[in-house]
């Protein structure tokens, strides 16, 4: 049994997906071990650190893999494919969130009063990470996904281009834009400017 487990761990993602599509539970376990935490982290960065929602997203993504393993093209990289699915899920979630925002516009006055008192708290308690994620979430979905894939998942420009199905040049320009925006928004945390 141990020998078999070792063999599964040595297999590539694509080979595991082949086995998974044939109903191999061990292959699925291995895929889950390799990608569940990474995808959860990605969703956390992309979806404003809502833990429950991100857990649901991870569950939904793996459920898709179980139900429709044939959607994966074996000639393609599993890593880029799974992240492209995750990106599309995030896009859909943003759309839903924007709809909800429009619906809940009536409650904005009371919210603003609360948010005023909250901001005073936040000014004192905020740390770099809070501000960073806040700034990241204020970015466009397309800039945010490029930035997250590059800096959190360690994707190369080529892999990002493949995942998001865009040109490498576009990836580069989006990445620069996101970096510049974040850097300017987090300027106040730089000790050089506080002195």
């Amino acid at each position, binding site marked *: 049994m141990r020998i078999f487990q070792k063999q599964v761990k040595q297999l590539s993602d694509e080979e595991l997906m082949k086995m998974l599509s044939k109903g191999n539970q061990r292959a699925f376990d291995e895929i889950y071990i390799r990608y569940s935490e990474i995808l959860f*982290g990605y969703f956390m960065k992309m979806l404003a650190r809502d833990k429950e929602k991100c857990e649901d997203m991870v569950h939904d993504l793996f459920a898709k893999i179980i139900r429709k393993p044939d959607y994966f093209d074996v000639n393609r990289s599993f890593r880029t494919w799974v992240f492209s699915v995750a990106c599309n899920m995030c896009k859909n979630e943003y759309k839903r969130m924007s709809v909800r925002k429009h619906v809940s516009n009536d409650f904005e006055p009371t919210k603003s009063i609360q948010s005023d008192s909250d901001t005073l708290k936040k000014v004192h308690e905020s740390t770099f990470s809070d501000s960073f994620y806040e700034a990241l979430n204020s970015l466009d979905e397309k800039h945010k996904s490029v930035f997250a894939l590059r800096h959190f998942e360690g994707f190369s420009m080529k892999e990002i281009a493949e995942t998001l199905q865009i040109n490498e040049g576009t990836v580069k320009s989006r990445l620069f834009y996101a*970096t*510049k925006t974040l850097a300017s928004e*987090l300027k106040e945390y730089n000790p050089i400017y506080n002195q």
Partner: protein
Amino acid sequence: MEEKYVQIFSKSSFHELTDDEKNFISELCSNEDEFESVKHLYSGMETLSDETIRLNSASVKRQLDQEFKEIHASEGGFRLLSFLFPPIKPLYAKPGLQIAFLLVFIFTLYYSVNNMSIDNQPKQLYSQNEIEKKESPKEVKSLSKDKAEIDLKTTNEESLMGSNESSELVEDNLNESISIDTETRLNGAMMAEMISDVEEDSFSDDMTLFAPTSAPTTAGIAIAGFDRPDDNEAKFIIEPIGEDLGLLEDLFVTF
């Protein structure tokens, strides 16, 4: 390319950069201010990796394992069953149940339409026949007798006409009538005379030639009624007055 960026931003200040390096990062930061802010961003991001929120892997994995088993357990020759009754879908969404409900609906529709269009009429006719049978059991007997009488009558008329074809028919009818009833055979001549007097006008020559041997005619029934006055009384819907004069009292209007 990425390594080069790391190298550049690891340097302490913008002034330390060579011209090539400055050109390389010109798209990202063109002055010292921008360089410092980007550098701070990268250094700050390195601290973020430590504070990761962990996934509640056990509960998610349990659910996924269950789904995996449900989907792949049925691959040993029960694909049709798993297609008809997929375990993950809710009860109302299972194709097997949907097909079953559709079949039940079609069958009920089919039978209800059948009952409406076809079954109602025969039932009515059948019930009418039953009532007639119940009301006049004697009539049925008299009909069979009348049948025989008509046969005899036709044979007599045929013989009088003397045609070859009719004689053959009459012979056949005679044979049949003889076998039906012995009493009618004995009194056949007498009865034929009586009936021929009454029915000469009602039957034409052609009709007598092809007189039915099996089905009784309305004339036959009428003859039976004529012969038996007791049976005729039973046919009246309104009860005859007879000796009961009390019934007449209801007819007079009193002021």
